[in-house]
């Protein structure tokens, strides 16, 4: 294994901190990073305070009749969705990254489309489409010559299987996105070496490409699983009672907020442990490639039947995760517009949705950049702990996070109001809840993990020797970040920003609870209609969410395709002899 061998001999710069940064103990980066972490952790601390109020008899009730089944069902759901997203995401990513077949260029971006479809919408859509009185079964009965649905029905989608199915097919793009990027960045040299050593194409995939892509798969799957764990819309609608639904029931039906907070915190602890375990498991490995002249992967051409099979395999997730629900929404929208016209509030709602999401995305990206860069600059565990704390918001269900945010937000408002009244004689009232800033705060706290993850991955591909060079030439930490890193991180920044934007647009519970009076977004409008059972009216808002969500997905595609190629070239061109001193290293013999 020549690669592994050569890297051990390479010049060793400490992987954690560029030399120049070591002197700075209390640098501003660390302070800002601390502030961000505190901002995200504040609602969780508030939840801990709420939970400590105690809840009489809750746990005996839970362990007796709720937890055994809720934990089992949650695990089955997570396992099912994890497996499905990993299979679809990794499989299609390997197909489009390493092969050529009819339609490959189109599938390259089309596979991302389901990202634009919120889970609660796809659940509604499939219940309608697959219902005994819906189009599919009606046509099937006509075909078979059966009159009554009582005589012949397909299995009900309101089940565990149905839930895994719909979640898997809208969440796989998280895995596809991260894994595809990893496959594209893998140097052809490694593949060639493996081939020279006698590995077949399957062997290359299973023993070289896949192990190297493991962090990407892990990041993608963990994003998908956190979405699943915190999903309330689809799971509840399809009758799957996860732990999150238990949290919800305890709070809403039994008015036991401390109890709900206790369950939520217990779940958070488990999630954090699992994430730490996964990181620990790949602690010593390194995934940046060591090749001196990385060459892009040569695509293997699939001909005839194999090519058609590959095209079919890529078409299926796009059809199920996007085309069918989108077609359904268009159909329902047309029916509704004919029946009742379009609500006049819609343009304002689109504007509200886009404005809130855009502001939140910008803030999230800046915050994530600071937090992740502080990790790169800092020494010791401090910045790393802060970065973890700043990512906690994603591991808590949106509703619960919003409840934790309420006392934090009104606390800030109280302090500002008091100061402003005494100093300027002007009352500021509820300026955060009243202006939409509270919603933005919630988005940043909740989705910081997504952009931080994307940036972390991006930074890990930039050799610390580049920092060292910039600093030696006299640039400060800030200048190095903006002049050197930001240009190189453009693809990672774009990926992070667009994922956050799409997630903000789809976010429902925090938006619903924290928005100002008389202020609607597409998601809250949709929810208001859906709860009344007027799905058709809701279809317009749903279609717009998907349509607006498509814009960033398409931008992502364009930037993604160009950006990766550029990023690869930039790094290799500027640092031709780069030994890629990244934190983790792969030993090929390990796999």
């Amino acid at each position, binding site marked *: 294994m020549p690669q592994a061998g050569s890297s051990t001999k390479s010049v060793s710069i400490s992987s954690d901190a560029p030399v120049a940064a070591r002197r700075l103990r209390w640098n501003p980066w660390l302070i800002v990073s601390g502030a961000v972490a505190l901002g995200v952790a504040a609602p969780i601390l508030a939840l801990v305070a709420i939970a400590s109020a105690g809840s009489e008899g809750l746990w005996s009730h839970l362990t007796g*009749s709720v937890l055994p089944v809720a934990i089992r069902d949650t695990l089955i759901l997570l396992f099912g969705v994890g497996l499905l997203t990993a299979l679809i995401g990794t499989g299609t990513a390997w197909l489009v990254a390493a092969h050529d077949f009819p339609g490959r260029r189109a599938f390259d971006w089309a596979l991302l489309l389901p990202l634009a479809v919120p889970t609660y919408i796809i659940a509604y859509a499939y219940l309608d489409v697959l219902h*005994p009185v819906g189009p599919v079964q009606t046509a099937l009965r006509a075909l078979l010559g059966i009159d009554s649905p009582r005589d012949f029905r397909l299995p009900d989608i309101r089940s565990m299987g149905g839930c895994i199915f719909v979640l898997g097919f809208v969440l796989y793009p998280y895995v596809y996105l991260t894994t595809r990027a990893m496959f594209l960045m893998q140097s052809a040299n490694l593949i060639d070496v493996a081939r020279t050593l006698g590995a077949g194409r399957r062997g290359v995939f299973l023993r070289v490409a896949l192990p190297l892509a493991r962090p990407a798969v892990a990041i993608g799957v963990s994003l998908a699983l956190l979405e699943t764990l915190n999903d309330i819309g689809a799971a509840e609608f399809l*009758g799957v009672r996860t732990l999150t639904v238990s949290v919800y029931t305890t709070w809403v039906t039994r008015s036991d907020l401390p109890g709900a907070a206790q369950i939520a915190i217990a779940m958070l602890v488990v999630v954090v442990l699992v994430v730490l375990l996964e990181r620990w498991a790949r602690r010593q490995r390194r995934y940046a490639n060591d090749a001196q002249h990385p060459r892009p992967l040569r695509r293997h051409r699939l001909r005839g039947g194999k090519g058609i099979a590959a095209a079919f395999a890529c078409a299926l997730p796009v059809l199920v995760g996007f085309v069918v629900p989108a077609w359904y929404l268009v159909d329902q929208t047309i029916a509704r517009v004919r029946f009742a016209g379009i609500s006049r509030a819609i343009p304002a709602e689109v504007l509200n949705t886009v404005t809130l999401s855009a502001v939140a995305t910008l803030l999230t990206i800046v915050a994530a950049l600071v937090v992740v860069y502080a990790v790169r600059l800092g020494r010791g565990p401090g910045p790393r702990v802060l970065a973890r704390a700043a990512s906690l918001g994603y591991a808590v269900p949106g509703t619960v996070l919003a409840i934790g945010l309420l006392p934090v937000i009104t606390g800030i408002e109280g302090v500002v109001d008091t100061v402003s009244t005494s100093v300027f004689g002007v009352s500021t009232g509820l300026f955060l809840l009243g202006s939409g800033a509270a919603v933005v705060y919630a988005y940043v706290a909740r989705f910081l993990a997504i952009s931080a993850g994307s940036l972390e991955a991006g930074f890990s591909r930039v050799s610390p020797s580049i920092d060292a060079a910039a600093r030696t030439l006299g640039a400060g930490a800030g200048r190095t970040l903006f002049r050197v890193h930001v240009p190189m991180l453009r693809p990672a920044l774009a990926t992070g920003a667009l994922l956050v934007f799409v997630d903000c647009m789809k976010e429902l519970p925090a938006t619903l609870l924290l928005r100002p*009076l008389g202020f609607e977004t597409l998601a809250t409008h949709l929810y208001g209609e859906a709860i*009344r*059972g007027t799905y058709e009216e809701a279809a317009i808002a749903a279609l717009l969410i998907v349509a607006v969500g498509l814009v960033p997905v398409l931008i992502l595609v364009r930037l993604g395709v160009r950006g990766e190629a550029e990023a690869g070239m930039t790094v290799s061109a500027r640092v031709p002899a780069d030994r890629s001193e990244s934190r983790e290293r792969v030993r090929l013999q390990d796999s």
Partner: protein
Amino acid sequence: MHNNKLRNGRGALAASVLVGIAGVAADAYADVNLYTTREPGLIQPLLDAFTKETGIKVNSIFVRDGLAERVAAEGRRSPADVLMTVDFGNLIDLVEKGLTQPIQSDVLNAAVPEHLRGKDGHWYALSMRARVVYVAKDLDIDSIHYEQLGDAEWRDKLCIRSGQHPYNTAMIAAHIVHHGEDATREWLRGMKENLARAATGGDRDVARDIMGGICDIGVGNSYYVGLMRSGSGGPEQQKWGEAIKVILPTFEGGGTHVNISGAAIARYSPNKDDAVRLLEYLVSDDAQKLYAEANYEYPVKQGAEVDPIIAALGELEVDPTPLTDIARNRDAASRLVDEVGFDQ
């Protein structure tokens, strides 16, 4: 010098930002501010009519869960004037958390019967809905007791939404008041056995599932029948509404279980007078008629007429169990639902 200037500049900037913010905040304080768990589409026609009649604008925010938490967190600064919910359990919760204030209104007291309002004027019901039974059209059945929903006769034939939904926990709590917890547990076990599909979705799904042959019998609210059959939800839903027969069930030795939509005045209401006017308007003849005609609910005001579609369901005989008794058993009902694994 330079420094001073800068500081002054900053001060002015800060002040103008604060004034701007205060402007935004003050704007939200004018008129009447309504916090509601009621679906906005259902309530908007009533609010529009109120504004037309009085010239008072109503700003509303629809919050499903966490209404109480938000109002509590806002505290004295809260712009909330009127708090409106669609389940009396949630309404009584608001009162118990100290988020409401009592009002004296002869208009309200005259319009709303005593058992449909709180003591000391802390809350008022505005409309009623009955928890009824939907059955397949071809079934030969004209009356049923709630208790019979657990009978083995309906094995694998029952459709109902989540047992944890407030509409169902209220119904189950009423069963507890009638028969005690043990009998209710057995009843729920029976219903659980009878489920034809997961206990989830909404009440309209019950009608559609009956049409789709998934089940023969189900439980849903009365106004959905009006919304479906009138065609106001579109032609699809009209078919669902026509596919079912509706029975007003009763508890053995009692009547039909009803829930309410209602409202209270927020404790720190900044526009209390106008807020009371809004409540008074909502029990006026005009508004009660709108509740009946647009939402297919039962008006609370005596003498106000129900919509013909709802009248055709039969004579409503309201179960005499006091709403406060039912509210007290809500927690026990929710725990029983968990115990028998109703939703699992």
